[in-house]
């Protein structure tokens, strides 16, 4: 089930835009509020749902069963290190969960905009921007030409 934004609750802070691994959370040009530009491409990782400081992002099913009354609502409490989920089924049942958010303090990871923009030389490498330093490793594991030849007849 992809995510969507309650525009009346969103304050346009951009946290979801930064965190979306699929780059589908963007800013609406008419109202300057976040929206999911391509629900079909949503990985359903719910990173934006958890990151939203206004609890403005919800989850909904696709059009065939969306109007039937289910919902997934999330309350993040970084000071407690917990995130609570309220799952409402379309038959009226409700389930509540609490799960730990993460092992590092909230806000301790740099946002993408805090990194320097890669230079033109970055296009010549196979690595993504700021790899491997941003992954806290010296070198990414990679196949060498010799290892590729092994086992080839």
């Amino acid at each position, binding site marked *: 089930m992809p995510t969507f934004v309650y525009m*009346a*609750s969103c*304050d*346009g*802070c*951009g946290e979801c*835009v*930064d965190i979306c691994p699929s780059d589908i959370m*963007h*800013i*609406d*040009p*008419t*109202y*300057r509020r*976040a929206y999911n530009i391509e629900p079909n491409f949503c990985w359903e990782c719910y990173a934006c749902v958890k990151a939203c*400081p*206004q*609890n403005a992002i919800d989850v909904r099913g696709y059009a065939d069963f969306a109007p039937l009354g289910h*919902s997934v*609502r*999330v*309350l993040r*409490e970084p*000071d*407690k*290190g*917990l995130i*609570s*989920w*309220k799952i*409402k089924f379309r038959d009226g049942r409700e389930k*509540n969960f*609490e799960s*730990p*958010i993460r092992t590092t303090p909230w806000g301790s990871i740099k946002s993408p*905009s805090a990194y320097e923009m890669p230079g033109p030389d970055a296009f010549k490498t196979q690595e993504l921007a700021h790899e491997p330093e941003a992954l806290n490793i010296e070198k990414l594991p990679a196949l060498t030409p010799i290892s590729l030849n092994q086992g080839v007849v």
Partner: protein
Amino acid sequence: MFTSNPFADLTVFLPPFAMQAFIVLMIIAVAIGTVLDMLHKSSAKFFALHVAKSNAAATRYLSGAETATLAVKTVAIEVAAAGEFCNPQRRISHLLMFYGFLFYLITTVAMIFGYPTHAMPTPVVLPVLWNIGVIMILIGGYWFFFLLRVNVVHDGQPVFRLVLADLFIVTLLGSVTFALIWEFVQTSGNLAATKITFGLYVFFTTLLFGSVRWSKFAHMFFKPVVAFQRRVDEARGVSSLPAPATRNNRS
């Protein structure tokens, strides 16, 4: 320059009645624009439906005193302190523009209707507050425009790529920027330059108040109502959010 009524000096080439009529037209334009905006977005209908659903789902009802307390909290936190912003820089910028706009608007109306000519001496506090308001809007507005707009900072769009959401901030900045330039030019005594800069001031001001149907201007009316309803929903047990966690994972 900062202590004299800039509108009283306009009588050199404009009768006082003209600016008073302009203010009335702008008030009418804002009222019509807000109504058209509500009709276009169906926001009033959506809000009425939400209130009806909220009433039906309420687990408890609020007394008049509780409702009044929530209204006071909404005014004190969401309106007066821009409490909904989680980014402190955006909050400060918004507060500068909010209070600057109030000073600017109230003193403009007071000077145009109360002291339209130099025949009635304008209290110094009015033009001083008008200038303070203009400067507060300029600081908060340009800070927001260049460094805080979410589509620029987080979505990577160029600063000068303007979209419909920029209509309000651009016309507001245009209005107050040319207000300050016009005031300065008028003090220097150059009539032709005064007419040009005053014309640009009137142009951007008309655009600001005449474009409510398409701009974010009406948010100053909607937002407090939505914030109040959210508080009422929470107090009546209607919030769709989960209850706060009972344990602490950090301790």
